């Protein structure tokens, strides 16, 4: 098979798919396909990428209906009968073509108190955190998130309830809840419990299924559910 039939989303929310024909190449990634189209067939195509090696998390798109990093997805793995369908991430406003507006995604990190609240100053000794301590282990399991938005785009609760904080923001909050150096535990638990927070999660596990880093935001959110419940029962929420 030497030519790929590629349907690429054009325009904004009310756009449509446009068909391109792209030569097949060895070890070709979906990002290679998009880049070929932009360089040779449609210079006006809008898309976003930076590192091309799975470190920055900026090239996530919807490939054949599933959110993925395009740079780490080989065409051979996803093309069906020589066809590809490439769209912008779901659950986010489309700026144009394959580029989405990720403001609400990151605003929700802030709403979930995703910022570290230090309790020490630069004049203090560095904190000693035992690598085997339960808190450190729990934070470790969730810390590798690079904010690509694949989980957020895959989540039905986000689609059904626009206020829901989403898997990435809650996963981030869970790492900080387990950080013994952090001083804002109470405020953070209140932030993730109020409104459509951790308790709105129905364990669809689409985030866990799709996370390119193989993290489990579902497990982090379950941790927050237990932590907020324990805080409530102790009268600390």
């Amino acid at each position, binding site marked *: 098979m030497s030519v790929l039939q590629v349907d690429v*989303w054009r325009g904004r*929310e009310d756009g449509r798919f446009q068909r391109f024909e792209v030569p097949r190449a060895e070890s070709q990634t979906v990002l290679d396909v998009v880049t070929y189209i932009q360089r040779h067939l449609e210079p006006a195509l809008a898309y976003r990428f930076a590192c091309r090696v799975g470190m920055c998390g900026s090239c996530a798109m*919807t490939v*054949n*209906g*599933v*959110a993925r990093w395009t740079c780490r997805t080989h065409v051979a793995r996803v093309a069906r009968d020589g066809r590809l369908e490439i*769209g*912008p*991430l*779901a*659950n986010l406003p*489309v700026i144009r073509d394959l580029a989405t507006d990720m403001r609400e995604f990151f605003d929700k990190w802030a709403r979930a108190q995703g910022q570290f609240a230090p309790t020490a100053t630069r004049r203090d000794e560095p904190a000693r955190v035992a690598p085997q301590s339960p808190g450190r282990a729990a934070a470790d399991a969730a810390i590798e998130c690079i904010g690509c938005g694949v989980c957020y*785009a*895959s989540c*039905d609760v986000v*689609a059904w309830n626009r206020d829901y904080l989403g898997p990435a923001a809650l996963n981030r909050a869970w790492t900080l809840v387990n950080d013994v150096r952090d001083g804002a535990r109470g405020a953070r638990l209140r932030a993730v419990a109020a409104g459509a927070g951790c308790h709105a999660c*129905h*364990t*669809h*596990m*689409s985030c*866990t*299924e*799709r996370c390119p880093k193989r993290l*489990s935001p*579902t*497990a982090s959110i*379950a*941790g927050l*559910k*237990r932590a907020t419940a324990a805080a409530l029962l102790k009268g600390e929420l």
Partner: protein
Amino acid sequence: MRRDFRARSHPAWWAFLVHRLSGLALAAFLPLHFWALGQALHGEAALDAFLRWTEQPLVKASEWAIAVLLAAHLAGGLRLLALELLPWRDWQKTLLAAAAGVTLAAGLALALAI
């Protein structure tokens, strides 16, 4: 962009759908069930009249279906309690299989008993 079935085609999502739809069906069924049992207030004969009505094949099949949905909701609910409350391990698929097994077993037992 909206997601379609392709984004949802994984076992945990189907488990959610079964849990939600069975929950909705049970919520709709419960008031009828309670009303039917309440017929006993009008005496044994009134309850018997209702029970004879349920002997129709279609009603009987529906009763079996709602009992299977109850078993599915129970098994799926136990799975959710385990996922949310127990320390997380990579056993989600095992739990799903167990939930499906419990539902199947209850369905068969009821079918045989009827």
